[in-house]
């Protein structure tokens, strides 16, 4: 990863995202092999890596019985910052936590807790920020603001590795990496991943979309059929089979079909539903 890059980490539950992030922090040791983080060996140099990274856990893991300011003071002290008071004040300003300084962390809503956790993780100005599903359970507006903050910090040279299940978040990453069973299956920019998947997607508008989707799902050549608002998406790897399926359906309703570029979501559902052996044989490796 290059400095200032935002890299999205995707994959099914249990595909090794959290494990990878924990290894990078030196929280767990790899069973075999090794790796480097910021040019340091993750096994040998864990104590030297720790001051240079910020790790935001999946669950809120600061102290709920401490106030926002006390939590940040604690983090500043543990990292032995030269000017803790100034650092805490600056981060409170930047994260917009001024009004909540003296509120107990346990009383904050999900979105504010996330923001506090982020503040605590970047307080010591790490070079690398590791975020493990940072926005799970947070509303859309708070998620948008959270990502704005991350992009803002990336501009200042912070490198970010973020794991997520949200496609809109994946689309905001400079690079995405798809993991399965601990192995990288696909990586590249969101556009490259979508185009490189070889997936053919058709979109239809009209009436009775749900019924059409149900019929399509059972047909050969259709890997996924789902309704998004007023449109129906049908996707498959085999163009002729997919078109055949759509054609055979047309007697049923007056749907207007046209081909669209595959959405990231289609691609990931396609990847998620494929068995592992098949994925390993996929020749997708076009990292920028």
């Amino acid at each position, binding site marked *: 990863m290059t400095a200032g890059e935002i890299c999205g980490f995707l994959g099914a539950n249990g595909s090794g995202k959290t494990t990878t992030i924990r290894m990078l*922090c030196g929280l767990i040791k790899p069973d075999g092999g090794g790796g480097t983080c910021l040019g340091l060996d993750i096994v040998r140099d864990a*104590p030297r890596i*720790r001051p240079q990274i910020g790790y935001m856990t999946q669950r809120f893991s600061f*102290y*709920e*019985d*401490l106030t926002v300011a006390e939590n940040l003071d604690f983090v500043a002290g*543990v990292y032995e910052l030269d000017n803790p008071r100034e650092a805490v004040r600056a981060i409170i300003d930047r994260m917009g936590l001024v009004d909540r300084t003296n509120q107990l962390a346990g009383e904050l809503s999900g979105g504010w807790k996330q923001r506090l956790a982020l503040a605590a993780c970047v307080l010591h100005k790490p070079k690398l920020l590791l975020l493990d599903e940072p926005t799970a359970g947070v509303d859309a507006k708070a998620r948008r603001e959270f990502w704005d903050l991350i992009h803002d910090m990336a501009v200042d040279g912070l490198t970010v590795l973020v794991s997520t299940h949200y496609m809109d978040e994946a689309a905001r990453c400079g690079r995405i990496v798809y993991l399965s069973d601990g192995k990288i299956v696909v990586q590249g920019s969101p556009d490259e991943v979508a185009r490189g998947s070889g997936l053919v997607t058709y979109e239809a508008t009209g009436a009775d979309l749900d019924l059409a989707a149900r019929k399509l799902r059972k047909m050969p050549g259709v890997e996924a059929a789902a309704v998004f608002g007023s449109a129906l998406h049908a996707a498959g790897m085999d163009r002729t089979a997919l078109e055949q399926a759509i054609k055979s359906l047309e007697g049923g309703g007056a749907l207007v079909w046209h081909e669209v570029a595959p959405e990231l979501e289609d691609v990931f559902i396609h990847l998620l539903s494929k068995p592992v052996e098949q994925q390993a044989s996929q020749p997708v490796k076009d990292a920028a």
Partner: protein
Amino acid sequence: MNGFSLKRFLTVLRKEWIQVRRDPITLRMIIALPVMQLFLFGFAINADPKNLPAGLLSVDHSKYERTLVAALQNTGYFDIRPLVSEAEAERALADGELLFVVNIPPNFDRSVDRGEKPTILIDADATDPSTIGNAAAALAALTTALDRDLPQGVQSKPANLPFQFELHARYNPERLTVLNIVPGLILMVLTMSTLFVTTLSITRETERGTMENLLAMPVRPIEVMLAKVVPYIAIGYVQVILIVVIAAAVFGLPIRGSIPLLAVALGLFIASNLVLGITFSTVARNQMQATQMAQFMLLPSFLLSGFMFPFKGMPVWAQWIGELLPMTHALRIVRGVLLKGNGLAEIAAELWPIAAFTLVVAVIATWSYRETLE
């Protein structure tokens, strides 16, 4: 980075202290509990119970009988009321309403006068032997009770013993139970606020996920552990001072030995609890398990240390288990220093087993901490 950092230690200590303060219920319990227990147990528990309910079953209501009943009352152990029938006696014993039933045989006076040595049967509820023990012992002293009423010939002749016994109840001449309870209570309360709280406080970090965060930060395990135990060591000493001062002021607990010596010895006992707490917390996955493990240690400490039951009365194998427990030795130290005025020379033999226990468990704690967290 790798060494111990005072700054990081103080940061964690400050955080722990805020958390202790933010939990008013625990804080109040820490102060109120030992005081409450001391008053409750000090006034309530009595190993030498008096005025036990007894019933009298008799048909004649004769002169000798009255004298005998008066003598029984005068021992202070019996509170006697008459019964009408054997059935009532049986029922009262079964109900637990009476602990003793005194059966005076018919024609008691005449039998005595004739020198027939009639038998007075006393039924006692022995479900709790310690309740009736002292009262039963008091009966032996009543052999001369009738002497004044009896004609010359039948009076009991005092045996002319070639020697005499005299029991001298040292260290606790009034045999006050509270003086026995205070040392045990000090250790129970210390166990609660060091073993339990350390175990829970570390397990809580694991349970709430904050431990993962803590470990990703550059803070050393030793700094976290020390900062976690220091507030509770302070709280433990406050509790000890509270108990000793109240026991001395209210219950007349003598303080015959050196308080600084006691403080040092208790420090060792606290250390043994802390290392054990840390060991438990490395194994326990949640606070429920942690509590159970701490209970597992508390019960034998309660029962086998000599606090609840006489140590020398246990079979040898049980005494061996008892000898392994820090509580057993700490109890001897506290009793020795407070009640007997023992000095370092006398308690040294009890200090090293606690030190050895602490050392062994500390090694296990260090080892298992590495295994599970690093």
